[in-house]
């Protein structure tokens, strides 16, 4: 610890703390532009300058570490004059037209800094040389006229997303923000995660969907989580007049710390399906609007007699995007009440069956996401993180510059292959053979940390190479890399079957990283669904009725085909689809932003969503709809979800209360 005196206040801070952070701890606010709490210090804009006793010139507080007994003054006349001058230069560097800038009036950190310093005007006029506006990107616009070259976006794209799309070309006054080697934004390697727009202090990177829809102070912000995949990234849902305006990543969220992917940030703003706001009942062959009572009566009339009729009763299928409260009630109603033999989710266990089976044998075998921070080798198995669980992919990508070795093993094409130090593409169905081959290679190399090393491994390696179609040399190269790592982490996805997963767990154990597995689950509540046993294959067979708790999910082509000709089809859904068009009764339910409920993420973390929008009057929550149906047939949909989740061994420790 070192002592530092800032504006007369003496405090103790750990060595290496910057003057800026120390000042924050002392309760003082120093204005910044290039600095961002989630990015490494950069020291480019100089707005944060302070006076330090004994130092000849003003110093940038964001990148100056404190030294013992340092005396700092953050707001002297000299400092203020310097800051005004710095802003004056920044404003004259390019072209700022606040009256028609999207962020003017509160959301611009540059303008706010000027106003806080009492700047009523600019001493020097703008540059007047027109800078380009790049509107080639589907979701983002770069207006170089407003860019102050603070490089927050460049650093965020690299440090947080690991994508390194953005950079700065040229020097001094000719410096320009560029995408890749100078291609249009829309044709660049950008993955549209939007993190750059979230950190840009000015209106230089704005997102097209929410531009000019309202300053942050004119919107309401609701802290919630993204339901796009099983990662459960924390979001702020910005709404105005009960309309979705923007989604931002929550900096204080434990999973993603501010970063989101395109699926979480932008796709929900593109929603164009038609909303269902009133119950519908098929009369004379046509779906007609009805009251809840009428619809419940129509449903219960057909459903009630089917209770207990195994195989010819009611089959039920739910979306793994529903909150766990709804999933538990769904199970209670259809498994417990109707005693149906077919109660499952739209995923039919696809991304969880192998993990559940292994957990039943061994108990929890997975770790949480923090393991990735320390990993020096990441093995990606049967999942394309460029497409699925993308923020997990960002975590992997951003660790690569610090010399983390990436190994990709996938029988399918994989977007991470070009980034990998070793990429193995086993023949279809031979992932487990390849993994056993890696284990054999490691034993052959004498690098096994558990179990036996030995010469017998030679034959095993040879046959694995033959069967998997991977050269033995490659297996040895990749195996050596994994075995030499001190903290390898294995990320696996739904392309792994039980045999593959067991081989992966054995490989992990062999290199002394027994529980260092992370399993992607697919949907937001796939793990919860698996814990509730909602993971069987769906077959309609002789069932006389099918109940689909679709929520705001999209019904697959396959499901629609399977359900064609169902004698009686009930769907609870937020949006109309080909499935609701086939139904006999439709109950209108909430979409994600209207729902409050709980989700169990990839690492067993229990997180809540909060309702950011109010649904139309006729719309009920998924849980309320299920409970109403239960009441109408004289059954119960009450369930203690926490207890229900714990009934089965989980692949990862569940953080239940």
């Amino acid at each position, binding site marked *: 610890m070192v002592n530092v005196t800032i504006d007369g206040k003496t405090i103790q801070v750990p060595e290496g703390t910057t003057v800026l952070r120390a000042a924050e701890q002392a309760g003082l606010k120093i204005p910044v532009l290039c600095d961002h709490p989630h990015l490494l210090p950069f020291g480019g804009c100089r707005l944060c300058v302070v006076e330090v006793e004994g130092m000849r010139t003003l110093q940038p507080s964001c990148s100056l570490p404190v030294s013992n007994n340092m005396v700092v003054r953050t707001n002297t006349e000299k400092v203020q004059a310097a800051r005004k001058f710095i802003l004056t230069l920044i404003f004259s560097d390019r*072209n700022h*037209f*606040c*009256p*028609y800038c999207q962020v*003017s*009036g509160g959301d611009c950190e540059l*303008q706010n800094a*000027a*106003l806080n310093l*009492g700047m*009523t*005007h*600019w001493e020097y*006029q*703008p540059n*007047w040389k*027109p800078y380009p506006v790049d509107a080639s990107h589907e979701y983002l616009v770069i207006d170089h006229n407003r860019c102050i070259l603070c490089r927050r976006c460049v650093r965020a794209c690299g440090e947080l997303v690991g994508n390194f799309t953005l950079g700065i070309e040229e020097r001094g006054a000719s410096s320009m923000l560029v995408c890749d080697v100078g291609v249009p934004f829309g044709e660049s390697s950008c993955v549209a995660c939007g993190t750059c727009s979230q950190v840009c202090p000015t209106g230089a990177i704005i997102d097209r969907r929410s531009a000019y829809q309202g300053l942050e102070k004119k919107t309401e912000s609701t802290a919630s989580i993204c339901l796009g995949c099983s990662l459960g990234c924390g979001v702020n849902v910005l709404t105005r007049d009960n309309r979705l305006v923007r989604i931002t990543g929550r900096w204080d969220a434990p999973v993603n710390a501010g970063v989101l992917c395109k699926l979480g940030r932008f796709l929900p703003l593109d929603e164009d399906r038609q909303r269902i706001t009133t119950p519908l009942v098929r009369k004379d062959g046509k779906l007609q609007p009805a009251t809840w009572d009428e619809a419940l009566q129509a449903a219960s009339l057909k459903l009630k007699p089917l209770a207990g009729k195994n195989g010819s009763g009611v089959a039920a299928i739910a979306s793994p995007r529903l909150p766990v409260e709804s999933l538990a009630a769904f199970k209670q109603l259809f498994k417990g009440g109707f005693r149906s033999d077919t109660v499952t989710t739209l995923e039919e266990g696809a991304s969880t069956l192998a993990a559940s089976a292994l957990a039943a044998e061994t108990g929890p075998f997975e770790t949480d996401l923090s393991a990735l921070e320390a990993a020096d080798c990441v093995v990606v198995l049967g999942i394309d993180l460029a497409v699925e669980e993308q923020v997990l992919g960002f975590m992997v990508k951003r660790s690569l510059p610090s010399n983390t070795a990436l190994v990709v093993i996938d029988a399918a094409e994989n977007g991470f292959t070009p980034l990998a130090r070793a990429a193995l593409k086993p023949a279809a169905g031979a992932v487990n053979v390849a993994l056993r081959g890696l284990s054999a290679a490691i034993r052959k190399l004498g690098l096994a940390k558990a179990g036996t090393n030995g010469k017998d491994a030679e034959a095993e390696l040879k046959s694995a190479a033959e069967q998997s179609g991977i050269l033995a040399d490659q297996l040895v190269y990749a195996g050596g890399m994994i075995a030499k790592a001190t903290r390898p982490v294995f990320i696996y996805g739904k392309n792994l079957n039980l045999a593959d997963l067991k081989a992966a767990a054995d490989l992990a154990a062999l290199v002394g990283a027994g529980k260092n597995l992370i399993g992607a689950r697919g949907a937001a509540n796939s793990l919860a669904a698996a814990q509730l046993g909602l993971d069987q294959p769906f077959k309609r067979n002789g069932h006389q009725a099918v109940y689909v708790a679709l929520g705001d999910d999209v019904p697959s082509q396959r499901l629609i085909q399977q359900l064609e000709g169902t004698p009686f089809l009930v769907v609870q859904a937020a949006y109309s689809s080909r499935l609701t068009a086939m139904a006999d009764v439709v109950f209108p339910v909430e979409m994600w932003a209207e729902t409050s409920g709980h989700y169990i993420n990839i690492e067993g973390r229990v997180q809540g969503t909060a309702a950011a929008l109010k649904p139309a009057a006729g719309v009920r929550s998924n849980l309320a709809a299920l409970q109403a149906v239960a009441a109408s047939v004289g059954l119960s949909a009450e369930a203690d979800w926490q207890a229900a989740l714990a009934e089965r061994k989980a692949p990862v420790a569940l953080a239940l209360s």
Partner: protein
Amino acid sequence: MAKPKISSDWMCGCAGCHMSLLDIDERILTIAELTDIRATPITDLKEPDESGVDVGILEGGINNTANEEVAHRMRKRCKLLVALGDCAVFGGVPAMRNFFTIEEALRRAYVETESTDSEGKIPSDPELARMTRVRAIHEVVPVDIFLPGCPPDPDAIFYVLSELAQGRKPELKGDLLHWR
């Protein structure tokens, strides 16, 4: 003490700042009581008294030789000059035009505009003022008080006027200081 004389004029703006001035509602009576309102674009008298005024207010940037004349005249005849609104302070929205040459801007306005018929031509009467780049007022004449905003808040305008009326120099900050 005699009431301070106030005069205003507008140049390359949209009149919005003067609308915002009227938007101070009944407080205009307070101003009228404390000051002697002389020439403004919305009163009968159009030019500031040759004998001078205490406070001159100018809305809009300077975009031609006529504006230059207005600015110089006001500067000459007032003791304190107030730049009212973003156009006066920064150049504002009209200054976007500076991205183009004057010829391009004239051609766009008089020939290429969707509402112009094929006969459209650029006015060239020598009596007309000559167009220039759009400039903030302080690029042409010294300004004493900058009152930014597009338009400035009525509250900010009232604050500035009432301070000036009482012989104080206003200092905009906090909620009263904004650029739009």
